[in-house]
């Protein structure tokens, strides 16, 4: 239980400055967006109130929507189940084997810093057809594996995975950094005590690092989930959602609807669904981790 008992005014002084900026500029727009979702509006001219029609259409009669949802969750799934665990493994290994980890952790973070424009360009040259000097296809060809070459970014079934790989690669360092910081915060007495009890190496990781790092792992998972659901600029740079919507995700679908197809009301409705999904998932992740933490403590 928190010990600081303070007056209402004090609370207000601490909370309000932040809350006002936040509510005014993030929350009010959401409310506006909730309302826009009920409109038939091109974003410029007159609008008509159409109730839930946008949502009905989205769920029943939009051939792009459900595949976009599926791809969005595929990305989120890879991010949570592959990227975050790998990052945790790397963070553990770094803590264990590297004496001056700063440089390493910082370097791994580098792709996060670079703008998506450049990441997209780089990976396009990696994925290009061999005739265009593409790296992967070039290597496959020189190994005599021509049958394995693909047009990675334009074959509808493959393209989305090609993009997911880039996304996983780009943000790996982000999660390494977060978890590395988490592991650093575990007091070393605990390890020393465990060593006396015979728990060392990976055994110590299993029984100490993992439970102790759970709260930070949760942060990582939540961030990776939300990040995946909102990711969109990488896709815009690499394929523009194409070919023929084959790499469209929810966020890009929303953007296209709002600003290219000029159905702002419909785009807002997609945004609202996106937000709701994030919300539900965050609650679920929280529940899961509360349970895990209880079990370990």
């Amino acid at each position: 239980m928190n010990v600081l008992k303070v007056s209402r005014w004090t609370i207000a002084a601490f909370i309000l400055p932040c809350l006002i900026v936040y509510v005014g500029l993030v929350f009010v727009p959401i409310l506006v967006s909730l309302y826009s979702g009920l409109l038939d509006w091109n974003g410029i001219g007159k609008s008509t109130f159409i109730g839930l029609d946008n949502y009905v259409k989205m769920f029943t009669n939009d051939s792009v929507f459900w595949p976009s949802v599926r791809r969005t969750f595929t990305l989120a799934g890879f991010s949570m189940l592959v990227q975050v665990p790998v990052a945790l493994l790397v963070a553990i290994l770094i803590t264990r084997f590297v004496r001056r980890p700063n440089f390493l952790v910082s370097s791994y973070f580098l792709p996060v810093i670079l703008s998506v424009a450049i990441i997209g360009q780089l990976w396009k040259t990696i994925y290009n057809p061999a005739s265009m000097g593409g790296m992967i296809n070039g290597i496959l060809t020189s190994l005599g594996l021509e049958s394995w070459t693909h047009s990675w970014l334009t074959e509808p079934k493959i393209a989305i995975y090609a993009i997911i790989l880039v996304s996983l690669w780009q943000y790996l360092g982000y999660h390494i950094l977060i978890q590395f910081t988490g592991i650093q915060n575990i007091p070393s007495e605990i390890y020393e005590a465990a060593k006396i009890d015979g728990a060392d190496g990976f055994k110590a990781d299993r029984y100490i690092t993992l439970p102790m790092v759970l709260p930070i792992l949760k942060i990582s998972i939540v961030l990776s989930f939300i990040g995946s659901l909102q990711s969109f600029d990488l896709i815009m740079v690499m394929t523009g959602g194409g070919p023929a919507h084959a790499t469209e995700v929810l966020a890009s679908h929303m953007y296209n609807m709002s600003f290219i197809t000029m159905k702002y009301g419909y785009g807002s409705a997609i945004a609202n669904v996106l937000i709701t999904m994030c919300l539900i998932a965050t609650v679920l992740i929280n529940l899961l981790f509360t349970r895990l933490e209880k079990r370990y403590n």
Partner: protein
Amino acid sequence: MSQFASSAGSKPALKVRSRRISPKALIAYLFFGLLLVTQLYPLLWLLIYSLKTNEEILSGSFFALPAQWQWNNYEGAVEGGSYFRYLGNSLFVTVTTMAGVILLSSLAAFAIARFRWKYGQLVMLLFLLGMMIPMQGTLLPLMIIFKNIHILNTHLALILPYMAFQMPIAVFILSGFLRTIPHEIEESAIMDGAGPFRIFRSVILPVSIPPMMTVCILTFINVWNEYILAATFISSERLKTLPFGVYSFVSQYSVNYGAIGAFLVLAALPVIVVYFLLAEKITKGMVAGAVKG
């Protein structure tokens, strides 16, 4: 807190358990090395890219070096892209945003994590909700708000939304950290007669450097490359930020790739410098934060 003090001292001994390199360690190093190559390669690639001609870039060859190093790409980037003016604007906007985020969110996070009051969780939830808002979705409403408070085409039209969008994650990280601090700290401070503001300033702030650095880095990265809001709310050449420079080489029917590459290098430089400086602080800050009392 005394346990932290001793732990900080003994940490290195724990990490490197033996001097000779075991096979396990060797595999780990190989793995680190491989990862290092893949994660650092983009920077090298970008440097080479920025020194090529348009034709060389578009021919797409992955490993090729430029036939002639095109240093004039940089000239073009600095002049054509108004590099220094945009850099100044970017620095101003980013630093102000960072300072604002740190100040306001740490106050709020402190209240949420340490005050005894009913609605802390509710406010936290409100902030959490904000992490889920896609920025593009707020573009139109923000335009209308800014029009009505007459800050369109000023830096405030960028700083305010940037701050607002960074606050959820900042509050999330900072309050998460503050929860882990033992309550004895405040108890002893209260006994010394300190009020909440003094506790915040002289007890909480100093130990919160590491998470604050994390918040700084995240803010910096998100704000530095932001373009959609900037392009929409800023019209005056005088006020534009760095990403404008990048896109100023994209015309209707042609793209000046070499200059874009050069500009991206110049734009990324400050981020990399700031990042490596702060990254140093993170680990240092962590030890400093632990050694107290």
